[in-house]
Structures are given as structure tokens and as C-alpha cells.
């Protein structure tokens, strides 16, 4: 078929048989079938039922780690305290070359780890005189004094690799009492509620809990145990034997290979999240632009899958494959 003939053929109105098609009926059937399947598979498999992570669980199972994390929050050395935007201005955040997107977005969800994670929750409790005195001493101290106390204690804990009972004696002010008070509060289960409390009737914002969890090893260990770490394709996985987000394979793939999988590698590995987001953006743009990309747009000519699907039509119409 020459090009001119093909144009005439393509432009000609349909002369074959026509049939009424009930689009609504088709849609209703699809919805009913999918609903029945969803109910059936829900009854069969249920849903992931992992017990929730709680501060109580953390403080009971790994009291030293919780305690050390509380001290880091007071010293301003935790992951959240040094994260930068959108929580504070203590870090530059991720960048792609000259694009400092995180910093440009600014602090939109301010979090002060000292007050939000330690002092405010402790202040909501009926406390012993020790904790009340420690809180009063902390509040009365100057900022530099607070930093000196908390940083010295944080350094002392780091020196003994987090084993609190081995920490050398020193001038740590009220910090040990505050950390112990928060640990006891967490063990009793009160910290979960105190961090969630936002003043409204419905409590739906879990930002503070998740950030605090992320500063210690509890959440990290749980993620590793459930194969949910980014470096082991965790983005694609789900807890238990449930299928995960298989469609995120490409996004997840980049985190497995160099330089993205090495946080120490600058600039790409250290800013892997930003670079991978940019890369996926470019690939998505490529996908959208397939119809106009030379070479790619003509792929169906070379890989004619559509002819397989509509083989009966092509056969009945006597249309043969175009020769190159």
C-alpha cells in the first residue's frame, strides 16, 4: 500500500458492520466484577496486621537507646534537630547542583526538638519533685548553659557507645533527670498520647512521633527486620507476606546501585533522594513525550504488538505488514 493509498484508506469512513454499544452497562459490569473480587480477596487474605510501633514499646525494649535519643533531642544533635527545612534552619537539606529546593521551600512545619519532644511532654505530667526541680532548673538556665549540659552528656553517652550505666560522672545539670523522666513517661505509655495531642478533637498528625522514632534505632530496626529499608528494595515491599508496591521497581532500583546507594559519595549519593526524584521526573517526561521522540515514536512499526492484538482484523482486511 503506497502512502497515498494509506492516507485514503485511513481517511475513509467505516463501511463495515456497526453495533450498538452500551457504555454504562459495560461500566456497571466492570464495577460489580471488581467489587466482588475485592470482597473475595479481602475475605481470603485480610490485610497487613503489624502491631503498631509505640514509644512504650521502644522505651521498654531498648531503654538505653530511648534515653540516649532523648539526650540528643535536648542537645540538638539528633537527625530531626539537624535536618533543616521544613522543620528548622539547622541544615542545608538536599540539593541538585545549585538547586537547593529544600532550603528554598523554607520552614513550614517548625519543630523544636527540645521543647516539642522533651520539655513540653514532661510538663504535661504530674511529676516527682526531682523532675519538677530539673524542669525548673532547665527553664531558668541560659541557652549556652543548656547547650553545654546537654552536649557534654551526649558526648559522654557516645563515648560509651550508648550504654547509660557506663557514662562517666560529670556536670550535666538537669539533663540526666529529664532524660530519665521522659524514659519513665514513655514506659508508662503517656508519651504516645502527649506527642499526638494537638488541641483538636481528632488527632491525625503523627509528624512528631515519626520524627522522634526516626532519631533512634527502634524504627530503623523494625524497618530492617521487615525488609523495608530503601537499600534493600524496601520501597516495593510490604510487611509480612503481602505483596508490596511492585510498580515502584524503577524508583527503588536506583537506590540499589552506585553512586545512589552510597551516602558518603558527593554530590550524588549524599543527595540521592533529590537526584533520583529528578531522574524519575526526566524519565516520566520521556514517557509523556514518546509520541514526539524520533526513533521511539516509530517503535510500534518495528515491534508490532498491536498487530498481534488485532490480528483477526488485519487478516480479514488483507492488510500486510509494511516493508521497510
Amino acid at each position, binding site marked *: 500500500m503506497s502512502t497515498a493509498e494509506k492516507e485514503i484508506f485511513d481517511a475513509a469512513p467505516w463501511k*463495515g458492520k456497526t453495533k450498538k454499544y452500551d457504555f454504562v452497562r459495560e461500566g456497571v459490569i466492570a464495577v460489580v466484577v471488581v467489587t466482588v473480587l475485592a470482597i473475595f480477596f479481602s*475475605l481470603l*487474605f*485480610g*490485610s497487613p496486621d503489624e502491631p503498631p510501633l509505640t514509644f512504650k514499646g521502644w522505651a521498654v525494649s531498648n531503654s538505653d537507646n530511648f534515653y540516649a535519643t532523648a539526650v540528643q533531642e535536648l542537645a540538638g544533635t539528633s537527625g530531626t534537630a539537624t535536618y533543616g527545612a521544613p522543620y528548622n534552619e539547622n541544615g542545608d537539606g538536599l540539593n541538585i547542583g545549585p538547586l537547593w529546593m529544600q532550603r528554598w521551600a523554607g520552614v513550614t512545619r517548625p519543630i523544636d526538638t527540645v521543647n516539642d519532644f522533651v520539655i513540653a511532654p514532661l510538663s504535661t505530667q504530674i511529676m516527682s519533685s526531682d523532675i519538677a526541680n530539673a524542669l525548673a532548673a532547665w527553664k531558668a538556665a541560659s541557652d549556652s548553659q543548656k547547650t553545654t549540659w546537654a552536649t557534654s552528656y551526649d558526648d559522654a553517652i557516645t563515648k560509651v557507645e550508648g550504654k547509660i550505666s557506663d557514662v562517666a560522672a560529670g556536670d550535666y545539670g538537669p539533663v540526666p533527670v529529664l532524660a530519665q523522666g521522659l524514659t519513665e513517661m514513655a514506659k508508662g505509655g503517656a508519651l504516645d498520647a502527649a506527642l499526638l495531642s494537638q488541641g483538636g478533637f481528632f488527632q491525625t498528625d503523627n509528624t512528631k512521633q515519626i520524627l522522634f522514632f526516626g532519631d533512634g534505632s527502634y524504627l530503623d530496626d523494625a524497618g530492617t527486620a521487615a525488609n523495608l529499608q530503601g537499600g534493600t528494595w524496601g520501597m516495593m515491599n510490604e510487611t509480612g507476606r*503481602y505483596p508490596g508496591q511492585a510498580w515502584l521497581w524503577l524508583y527503588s532500583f536506583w537506590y*540499589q546501585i552506585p553512586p545512589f546507594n552510597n551516602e558518603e559519595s558527593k554530590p550524588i549519593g549524599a543527595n540521592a533522594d533529590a537526584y533520583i526524584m529528578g531522574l524519575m521526573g526526566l524519565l516520566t517526561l520521556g514517557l509523556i513525550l514518546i509520541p514526539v521522540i524520533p526513533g521511539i515514536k516509530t517503535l510500534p512499526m518495528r515491534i508490532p*504488538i498491536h498487530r498481534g492484538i488485532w490480528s*483477526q482484523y488485519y487478516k480479514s482486511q488483507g492488510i500486510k505488514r509494511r516493508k521497510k
Partner: protein
Amino acid sequence: MTGWFADFMNHPATYLKSGWFQISITNLLVILLMLAIFAIAILLPFPQEKKEERGSTKETRK
């Protein structure tokens, strides 16, 4: 929600691992199932269309 197989499903998954590649058996099954459905959709003829095609050919021949 608790399903009939929920106990089985909530146990730790088995993973296949080779170098940097790792995938859970469940994810692998889902991916293979998707590919199988795709292949079937391409290879199986449409039964209804077959009938229509015959009809349509007859009409064309008229």
C-alpha cells in the same frame, strides 16, 4: 480485617536475593501474574469479535 489466610500472610516473607537484586516471593508472583495476563490478553482471540468478523465479512462481500 482478618481474612481466612491472614495468619499465613502476616508471617515474615521469603526473599530471593542475588547480589544487589532482591525480591519477595509474593512480589515476584504478582509480577509474573501481571505478565501472564498481558500475554493472554495479546494472544487470545476475542470470541465475540470472531463472530462479528464473520458477519462483517459477509456484509462486505454483499
